[in-house]
């Protein structure tokens, strides 16, 4: 990890221009959750030219289906889900202003190209570190698609949510670079 950068949402072009793969970031502000089922609905709205349930410009979507909140806590365990399942939907959302995504695991080339084109960034949270992430979430409320249960869209207030920059706006990919660096040919 080269450096630690604090980020406040919504993100600006200037914010994302400073980020490189491997940077550790601490994200604060409002972020939105969404996974497979919610993405399908969001992209259907975009394609129909309809308004989204939240203003997506400069925002971050976190790929998560949280566990139920235990008494006295704003949310249950809330680590990232695997991102490639959202790859078919992500470019359409970046085209209408989405600036960041948080998940785990590599993205396909179409998403990487869209990040370059739209000046957007992909952050990796630590898969399985779901209590560590939950501690960075100070408030949570469902704002759309309540029928989807854990897959509903939630607005989260986060403070110093720890992530690593996995894809920057310059086309770099930590998953390719990291493996290249540590692979031992046999």
């Amino acid at each position: 990890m080269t450096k630690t950068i604090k980020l406040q949402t919504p993100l600006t072009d200037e914010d994302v221009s400073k980020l490189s793969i491997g940077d550790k970031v601490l994200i604060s502000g409002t972020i939105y959750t969404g996974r497979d089922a919610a993405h399908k609905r969001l992209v259907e709205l975009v394609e129909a030219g309809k308004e989204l349930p939240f203003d997506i410009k400069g925002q971050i979507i976190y790929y998560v289906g949280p566990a139920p909140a235990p008494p006295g806590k704003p949310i249950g365990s809330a680590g990232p889900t695997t991102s490639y399942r959202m790859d078919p939907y992500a470019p359409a959302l970046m085209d209408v202003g989405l600036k960041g995504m948080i998940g785990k695991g590599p993205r396909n080339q179409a998403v990487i190209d869209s990040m370059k084109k739209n000046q957007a960034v992909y952050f990796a949270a630590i898969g399985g570190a779901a209590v560590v992430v939950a501690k960075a979430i100070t408030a949570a409320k469902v704002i759309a698609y309540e029928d989807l249960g854990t897959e509903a869209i939630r607005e989260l207030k986060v403070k110093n949510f720890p992530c690593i920059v996995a894809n920057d706006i310059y086309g770099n990919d930590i998953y390719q670079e990291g493996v290249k660096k540590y692979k031992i040919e046999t």
Partner: protein
Amino acid sequence: MREINVKEIIPIVRKLCIDANYYIGKDVLDKIKEFYEKEESPTAKEVLSILLENYELAANEKMPSCQDTGVAVVFIELGQDVHLVGGNFYEAINEGVRQGYKDGYLRKSLVDDPIIDRVNTKDNTPALIYTDIVPGEKIKITVAPKGGGSENMSEVKMMKAADGIEGVIDFVVDRVRRSGGNPCPPIVVGVGLGGNFEQSALLAKKALLRPLNESHPEDKWAKVEEEILEKVNKLGIGPQGFGGRTTALGVTILHKPCHIASMPVAVNIQCHAARHKSAVI
């Protein structure tokens, strides 16, 4: 003959679901610590230390270590001298799962129709239940909650005898390579060999129940496990796929006899949360 009322099973399954999700096994923690010492990548080291911190927090706060609290996979070893009374045995297991996932604030991660409707069943049932009849008059129940991210990276291949052990090793290593950072490495690689198409997959899943500090009881297979682990950890994938030496914590193999024409090979990928808890009644 021993009579057991199925109602006795409900609170036991309930507790196993909760405990498996809150308290990771010491074998997993010890392995992560062991690999932390050997890891060369600073990013990988940081990831491993965050995972250790997370497991400690989960146990202390009584929260599931991962939000994906899985499908409840339940293995039953039913003594043949047990007479079950008081209702439906499988319904009792499902009631235990229902209560455990509700009372433990665990995520309900099942959909009913798998393709067209995909509506959540809301109580994490039905459990996936596998029963073996064994000698004796006890019941052993193991609950192994299985997450979706790692399960999605699993595969069965019907290989040829001519592919040999080298072909099997290459297939398993390549399955891990193709999985990359998706299944939450460091992973455990469960391998099922032989049986039939369907049995190989179940063997691979059962192989994941072996504690990580135990090696295969047969030397020749223990050596194969070591060879696969070494090759997998040369792939460079590392924790979370960010690059590093710790791609897998262990490889566990189970094998059975098979047809003269066949050589089924199943790889069941398990994320670092290699969760399972057992109880004996």
